[in-house]
């Protein structure tokens, strides 16, 4: 095993992924090498089909890489585990459990005493501001509230790597903005490491320390861009827009190589 620099939380070493579809073998991911530090907020951005979700699912342990390995705190990932928490776009809450029961699900698996499970669940219900809805079922919540529950559910389980697969993609613009701010606050408070998949350039530049631009056929990481803008970030500032334009240009140059030289306002 290669010696890892200090503070490395997640290391992806030579990971590739091939699928069998009918009789064709599809190369979803070419070789990916990546190191993510403790407490970093990394956004993966790219066109659909570039393998960004596949990469996230491999890190989560839902899928095995064809070659290579994923290390979390120097230990190889072999199966889903409570150190990594996935937040799905469609929430994946347990519909038969209340908000509080959903959030307490992870602690309950650890065989903690009932009172302790209650305490932890209550604490994380408060963290995402859902005290008034603690005894509601998911079907009685709005999309934004459901996604808050999903985030609280993985945090309550002591996950120190948050894997987010287009978590705000199904929400309306206002709710999305609000949740982006709440996520940044939660991140600032808990210092979890976040890998966030999105296809919105603005969202990536607003949230991330680093934006990884992926391209398809087969999926690979083309650019690794550090976002040095101070926080809180102002989406209407000229500095923000210049970074956003830069990321968007690199993204579109991979999506449509034929138009790479055409003026930006296609």
């Amino acid at each position: 095993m290669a010696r890892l620099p200090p503070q490395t939380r997640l290391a992806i070493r030579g990971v590739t992924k091939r699928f069998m579809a009918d009789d064709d073998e599809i190369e979803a991911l070419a070789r990916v090498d990546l190191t993510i530090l403790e407490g970093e907020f990394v956004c993966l951005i790219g066109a659909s089909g570039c393998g960004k979700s596949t990469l996230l699912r491999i890190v989560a342990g839902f899928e095995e890489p064809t070659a290579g390995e994923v290390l979390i705190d120097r230990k190889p990932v072999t199966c889903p585990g409570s150190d990594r928490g996935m937040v799905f776009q469609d929430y994946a809450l347990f519909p038969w459990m209340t908000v509080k029961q959903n959030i307490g699900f992870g602690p309950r698996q650890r065989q903690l005493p009932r009172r302790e499970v209650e305490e932890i669940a209550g604490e994380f219900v408060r963290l995402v501001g859902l005290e008034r809805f603690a005894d509601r079922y998911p079907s009685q919540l709005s999309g934004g509230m459901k996604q808050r529950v999903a985030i609280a559910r993985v945090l309550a389980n002591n996950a120190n790597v948050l894997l987010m697969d287009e978590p705000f993609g199904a929400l309306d613009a206002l709710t999305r903005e609000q949740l982006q701010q709440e996520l940044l606050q939660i991140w600032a408070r808990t210092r979890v490491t976040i890998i966030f998949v999105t296809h919105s350039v603005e969202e990536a530049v607003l949230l991330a320390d680093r934006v990884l631009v992926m391209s398809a056929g087969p999926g690979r990481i083309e650019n690794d861009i550090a976002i040095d803008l101070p926080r809180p970030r102002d989406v209407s500032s000229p500095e923000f827009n210049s970074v956003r334009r830069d990321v968007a240009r690199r993204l579109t140059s991979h999506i449509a190589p034929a138009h790479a030289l055409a003026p930006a306002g296609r």
Partner: protein
Amino acid sequence: MSENVTALGEPAQAPAAARRRRRAFEALQAVALGAGFPILLVFLWHLAVIQTGTRLIPSPRQVGVMMYDFAFGGVYDDAFSATILTHIGKSMQRVYGGFFLAALIGIPLGLMIGRIKLLRHLLDPTISLLRPIPVTAWLPLSMIFFGLGPNAAIFLVFLGAFYPILLNTIFGVRSVDARLFEAAAMLGCSGSAMFRQVVFPAALPAIVNGLRIAHGFAWILIVVGEMTGVPTGLGAVIMDGRTLSRTDLVVTGMIVIGALGFLTDRIIVMISNRLLRWSPQHHG
């Protein structure tokens, strides 16, 4: 000040009261229609018997008398007088013996077949082969297996209830969003805890549907089951009525089975609404 409050309060209350009245009227109307139609059918039956002058079909009045005698005795004072509770008790024992046995085997087996591919490949073809065989075709074999007695009836009820429970459970597990299992695994849930805490509740709406269908079949099959030479039970009463050419007894047995099936179905619906109150698809 107080005038203001009432002035604001009145218009809000009046429509609410009117809504309540309309809902009450609608509920009453539903009951009147639902009960009125069977009463109309009984009346038509009465007219038809009088019109044709048949001796083969009893009139509603004769059935009513028979029902009274079956329940309380004092009219014919024969072997069937005041025996209704014995027969109901025996039939329910067999219906629920078979039904619960089917649920006890069908639900866990269905959960496992739905989740474990190897088991599905092992058992699915066999189940598909056995399922189309009508339960009544098992009658001769079940009498050889279990002899003349209640066990053969329980076996037939079990067979009839087993497949709907099994297939609905498998279907329920298969149609659960795979992400729920991923989410549970990521939160540290595995093995038997996964079955208890995730697979079972996630499949519960389909399982409950299966139980309800199976419960209906169980009551249907009790007559067939009790043809196997048992002395008591509502099916046996109907068979006795047939051999004695007492159609009033036959119809009485039919009505008792219908009423019991209806009442117990309502109980199942009540329990399932309580269990599935989280599901927006299960209301009322």
